[in-house]
């Protein structure tokens, strides 16, 4: 293989890999504070870029991306508050979220399309409000707050299906893409004979900023340290006056936010479709396990490794099977060294495999 082709493969691998690493870090943040693997992690990327694509049609690109990230962060918080926390008392956030979710159904299905727009809205509100109130009542009355792993897995799977379906109905099943941040589809930069799109530099830059930023956040800010404390020992953390519940919410917000940002920067390259979340999630999980679950530095290394491996696999394997490679790696790692390449076997013995 010629050296510039090798370089080309490596660069495209690193680009893909850095996205996997971001997804894996999203898994890790939530896993560290809650012990839950959030199966809906991939959907955060898709949601972020979908919102940004819609906003970019009438807003400047930077502003659209910013708003999209903030909105996804809020969705992450809302999901945690509604489904994970299992609050027993009345929660306005939950009512509003439920209301919006239910509102979409009659509105998008065109149940009252014959009526003027305002009447249509009013009818939908009349349908959605009592249902939302009813579910809220059920929450207050019946929710069992025992948490077991099987139950949490199934809930997050349900969330991911729900998010995917909501995105399908709000947007549609078409491929969309954000405009390139600098240049366009055909502009390319020559790096030692390998041609790359300027967007690749954006992806690498943003991923680096996210990784470094999170590291600084966890090391040097009080909230970051508090979150680390929660992952270490929840009881001890709450004895120190840390509000563990809000730290969990915050972890969902952060992973949703970085997910959305990663989704936005890759959207021009890979395009966005409503159902690509689950593939991203399983690859991200493979990376998270490869790097040792909960270990974010390991996730970066493992992400880059998997990305490069996939890029080279394209040259020797039929394209259709590429999707399976990361999963085969995941299975092999799970069978032989579930603590990951960088996790310690002693520490992992305490975890539930």
């Amino acid at each position, binding site marked *: 293989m010629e050296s510039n082709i090798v370089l080309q493969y490596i660069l495209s691998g690193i680009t893909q890999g850095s996205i996997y690493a971001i997804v894996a870090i999203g898994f890790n943040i939530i896993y560290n504070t809650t012990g*839950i*693997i959030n199966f809906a992690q991939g959907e955060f990327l898709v949601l972020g870029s979908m919102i940004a694509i819609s906003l970019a049609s009438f807003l400047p690109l930077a502003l659209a991306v910013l708003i999209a990230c903030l909105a996804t962060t809020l969705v992450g918080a809302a999901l945690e508050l509604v*489904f994970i926390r*299992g609050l027993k008392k009345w929660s306005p956030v939950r009512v509003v979220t439920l209301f919006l979710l239910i509102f979409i*159904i009659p509105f998008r*299905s065109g149940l009252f399309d014959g009526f003027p727009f305002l009447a249509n809205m009013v009818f939908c509100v009349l349908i959605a409000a009592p249902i939302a109130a009813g579910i809220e009542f*059920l*929450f207050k009355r*019946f*929710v*069992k707050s*025992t948490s077991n*792993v*099987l*139950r949490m*897995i*199934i*809930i997050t*799977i*349900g*969330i*991911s*299906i*729900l998010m*995917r*379906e*909501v995105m399908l*109905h709000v947007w549609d099943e078409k491929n969309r893409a954000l405009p390139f941040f600098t240049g366009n589809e055909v502009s390319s930069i020559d790096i030692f004979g390998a041609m790359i799109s300027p967007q690749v530099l954006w992806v690498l830059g943003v991923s680096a900023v996210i990784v470094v930023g999170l590291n600084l956040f966890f090391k040097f800010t009080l909230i970051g340290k508090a979150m680390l404390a929660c992952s270490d020992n929840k009881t001890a953390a709450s004895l120190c006056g840390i509000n563990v519940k809000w730290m969990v919410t915050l972890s969902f917000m952060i992973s949703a936010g970085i997910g959305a940002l990663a989704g936005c920067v890759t959207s021009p390259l890979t395009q966005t479709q409503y159902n690509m979340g*689950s*593939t991203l999630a*399983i690859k991200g*999980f*493979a990376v998270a*396990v490869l790097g040792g679950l909960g270990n974010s530095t390991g996730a970066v290394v493992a992400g880059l490794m998997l990305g490069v491996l996939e890029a080279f696999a394209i040259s020797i394997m*039929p*394209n*259709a*099977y590429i*999707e*399976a490679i990361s*999963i*085969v790696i*995941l*299975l092999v790692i*799970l*069978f032989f060294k*579930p603590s990951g390449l960088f996790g310690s076997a002693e520490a992992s013995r305490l975890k*539930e*495999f």
Partner: protein
Amino acid sequence: MLARYKPLLIVLGIVVLIQLLLSLGGWEFFFTQLIMSAYYSLVVIGLTLLMGYAGQISLGHAGFFAIGGYTSALLTTIDLSGLWDKGTLSLLSSLFITMEQKDPYGNIIYSFSPWVAFVVAILIAVGVAFLIGIPVLRLKGHYLAMATLGFGIIIQTVLLGTTALGAADGISNVPDFTLVPGIQITDRMADRVMNYYIAWFFVLLGLFLIINLLNSRVGRALRSIHGNEEAANSLGINTSRYKLYTFVLSAVLAAAGGVFLTHYLGSIGPSEAGVIKSVRYVAIVAVGGMDNLFGTLLMGNLLNFLSLRGYFGTFDEAVFGIILIGIMLFAPKGILRIKGIKYLSSFIREKLAVFKREKEK
């Protein structure tokens, strides 16, 4: 002894009742979806055994369904003329190993007979289940869920990428499955009622096997594993072996469902192996109440029937997502054990008892 099989007789009674109702009412067009739901419920009862009784989640059961369906579809549509000469083929045909049939262009081709394909499909499913089960079942929780999910995705990727298996189109023109001369799995309109009973015969057979299993040493061992694996282990139960056997049995049931449904519909596509399908099976088991065989059977047939009839419209997947979340939040033990329903059923039972007593007087 009879008490054990009473639920089976009740199921049979309901099945017959529905058939009479539909035939007399002229609603025979419902049979197609009822038959499909019945075959899907073979997967559901197998998964119930695995999830509810052995306590192991599998997000890859659609993969086993597809393994069964695709193996049978491939073997019964493949052209063997190039492999053996005509004399050998007609000899094999008289031994029921191969079968003479017409391809879409009207040419006569020889393929394996459905029974041979069925046996091969089941053997492959058993092999794959052992191969996957031995390492995967050492895992727990998220890791088990992700590993089985990964298995399902691999199967679907392979199906989508292999042109010999029809890639995105799947395999069509799968012949009817002649079980014994005169009785065949087919989608011919005239044989709808017969096929309805064939489908339910297989479901009841599966239930019969599972009920016997659960009432044996194995069943008690499984329950102890579900309760507390360490404790079961310390009592000398080989937990990993029992988990593996349950996994294999549930894979076999899923594969059998795949074979029958493929012959019934005459085709199979890669979407049958999709993550969405696997999640749907898990949702059905959760709704039915995990360790409630007849609950999952009921909910499986109900939900699949409604979904196949298209009553959920474009919200088909969303319905299953909402069901998953709702059940896990409000009724982790299944919809049939919600307080209200429990209350209602005990209320009815009380009234019935009073009524009976008064009658006796």
